[in-house]
């Protein structure tokens, strides 16, 4: 019998590119990552780079125009608001609120949703039925309405907003994780692991989770953007972060009365929200592409 080629492909030629290299080759991811990196740095270094105290009012310098307008100047590059507070400083500090809300909401709802989805998908049967009921119940609740009710009861604060969003936004995690796990549960490598005596928790963490992590990461980015937008809407409605804390949504709300004559008061925080959400979404898209198994090697 002719001997067959049993050697492995040469190392180096086929060694797969690292995840990082694959992600960096994706222009969308790169753009999103850079933009997000800038916003995060800005938020962390806020006390160092903000030119003024974001809360300091100056009645003599109200609604100063930003530098690109004819009556603007570089003392206040983005101008000042109706109470004479420096707009650039408020934008810089506002990034902290948005990111804080985004991150904590995703951690909170991500854990709830993933646990529910994985349990429902893996065990099926009655567990699935019960969790599906919870998901259905959650889906019938409009987030903004519930948030309004809670805020009306307990008063609006950063803490309340984070909690409400964290406890409400897990639905997508649960639904996607459930279907992903159901798909993978019947793969032969999971059955092989069962027959090799893996305990259930070990099987879930070692064999299952790594295979759904890509989907988890993608939903996490989208939900983060979602949470940031919701915070902005709640603050805009006056039910989220309370003044004088600088929040981008609140700044849009406060700029509302100047819409006609000093529209940049709305445009600047609006653009900031837009940029942050865009950056996160583009990163999510890039992550999804870079993590797809068929794009490997």
């Amino acid at each position, binding site marked *: *019998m*002719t001997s*067959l080629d*049993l*050697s*492995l*492909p040469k*190392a180096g030629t*086929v060694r*797969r590119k690292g995840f990082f290299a694959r992600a960096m080759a994706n222009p969308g991811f790169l753009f999103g990552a850079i933009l997000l990196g800038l916003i995060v740095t800005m938020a962390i270094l806020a006390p160092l780079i903000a030119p003024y105290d974001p809360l300091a009012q100056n009645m003599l310098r109200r609604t100063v125009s930003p530098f690109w307008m004819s009556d603007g100047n570089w003392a206040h590059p983005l101008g000042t608001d109706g109470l004479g507070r420096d707009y650039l400083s408020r934008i810089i500090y506002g990034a902290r609120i948005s990111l804080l809300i985004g991150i904590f909401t995703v951690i909170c709802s991500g854990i709830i949703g993933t646990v529910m989805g994985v349990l429902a998908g893996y065990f099926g049967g009655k567990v699935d039925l019960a969790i599906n009921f919870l998901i259905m119940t959650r889906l019938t609740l409009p987030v903004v309405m519930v948030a309004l009710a809670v805020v009306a009861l307990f008063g609006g604060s950063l803490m309340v907003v984070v909690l409400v969003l964290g406890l409400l936004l897990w639905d997508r995690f649960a639904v996607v994780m459930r279907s992903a796990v159901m798909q993978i549960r019947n*793969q*032969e*490598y999971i*059955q*092989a*692991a*069962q*027959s*090799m*005596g*893996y*305990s259930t928790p*070990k099987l879930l963490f*070692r*064999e299952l989770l*790594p*295979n759904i*992590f890509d989907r988890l990461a993608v939903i996490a980015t989208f939900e983060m953007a979602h949470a940031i937008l919701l915070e902005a809407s709640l603050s805009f409605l006056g039910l989220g972060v309370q003044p004088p804390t600088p929040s981008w949504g609140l700044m849009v709300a406060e700029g509302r009365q100047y819409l006609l004559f000093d529209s940049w008061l709305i445009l600047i925080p609006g653009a900031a929200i837009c940029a942050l959400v865009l950056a996160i979404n583009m990163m999510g898209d890039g992550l999804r592409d870079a993590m797809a*198994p068929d794009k*490997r*090697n």
Partner: protein
Amino acid sequence: MTEPLLSVRNLTVDLPASGDRLHAVSGLSFDMYPNEIVCVVGESGSGKSVTAFTAMGLLPKALKVAGGEMLFEGRDLLKMSRHEHAGLRGKRISMVFQEPMTALNPCFTVGDQIEEIFRTHTKLSSAECKARTMALLEEVRLPDPPRVYASYPHQLSGGQRQRIVIAIALAMDPKLLIADEPTTALDVTTQAQILSLFKTLKTTHNAGILFVTHDFDVVAEIADRVIVMQKGIVVEQGTAEEVLNQPQHPYTRQLIAAVPRKREGAAPPLQEEIALQVKGLSKTFHLGRTLTRKARTVHALHPTDFTVRKGETLGIVGESGSGKTTLVRCLIRLLDPDEGEIWIGDRNFAKGSRESLRAARKDIQIVFQDPYGSLNPRRSIGEQLIGAPMNFGVSRDVAWERAKRLMKIVRLEEEALYRYPSQFSGGQRQRICIARALMVEPKVLIADEAVSALDVSVQKEVLQLLADIKRDMGLTILFITHDLRVASQICDNLIVMSHGKIVERGTVDQVFGDAQDAYTRQLLSAMPGRGWEVPDLDALSA
């Protein structure tokens, strides 16, 4: 000599730049005449399907025809506009696909789907359409045409669906019929019927049939002429007689040598010690229960008894739906059997909760069918190998040493332990799966269709490996397969299952020589390639 029906000259199809070679097919030339079956044979990646798809104008976008011509009835298919080509498709040239389960649209009845062809290519009235559809259903020998006409695809079996696909292909009386592995997904008995159908169609329609396959026994069954391809190049072509009995090219010889055949000579005597004893094992499924409707019961496994002695290879043969998968899943307790006992050593594996069985699981291990689905794509080979022994309390270092040793046994390099599954071919992956199953030094190894998804030459390698390991380690193997040829090559004893029951048991020679059950005889007579003996290749090369 008649005019050739299809004449391919110097056809070259490029692969995308990242591929492992430049051309999917290069410099392919052959002629096809009416009333002739030409078999294109090769292993996966040989370019045989690309050839078929080029003729149909259905090449994936990534592949580009680089040169050559493909003359069909004097017109070059490659220079035709998409529109012209579409006009030929289904009318003058038609195709039968590999997977009958997905080749039909589940939303429409079979009748609708066949009539669709008439509506596209002719202006027949609906009554005429229906009449011709019925005639077609008769022609492909489907029972009760009016019922089939009104059925949806899910109501039909795989073999019946493949007949429908063939009926659709034949609707416009095409001159060229392209069949891409049309029987690979079917059971042996069904395959035999479909093959004989193809032989009849060749004469009744005076058509040329381009039949793509990987199985030399199928070739022996139906081919008039054979084209053997390897890595996009034709290595040999000639009449079936020449290629099968006097293969010239080393690759053709290698493929023919790899065709599974019954092992000659008496099996070595078996030890007395019993490794696995199954008593009265049964499983019934209750399906489709809702609040208002009672469950439908399916007896997947009737009470089953058998014993396997230490060092024995027991083949369990059956077609789809025979209950062999249920048996396997009960044996390793992925399913809980209703009743019965599974004795491995002095432990009843059928008793106790699944959680309490974890410690006993190391005695019985399994290698699955699909080499692509049975390795976790996100974990390195080494991590996956040492996982099982570590579950049974072996230290990491000891497990890692064992993994290295097993890599050598399954003939892979040690470096493979640091790689991920996507970097290995199907055969290599299956060897890794075998190594993984052996990591816990099981008493019984179950090979569940472990070689069915592999190319013949790789299949032979893996079978050889299993036989070697069994000899060296004194392992007991349960070899589950649908293919009697493979079973007869490796097994000592055979069990034939049908409809959840064991219908035949005995040594390979007993089963092949003197089958008692009607179903076994049917299986044996359906094996393709009877009447063709693999030639003595050593004598040829001398």
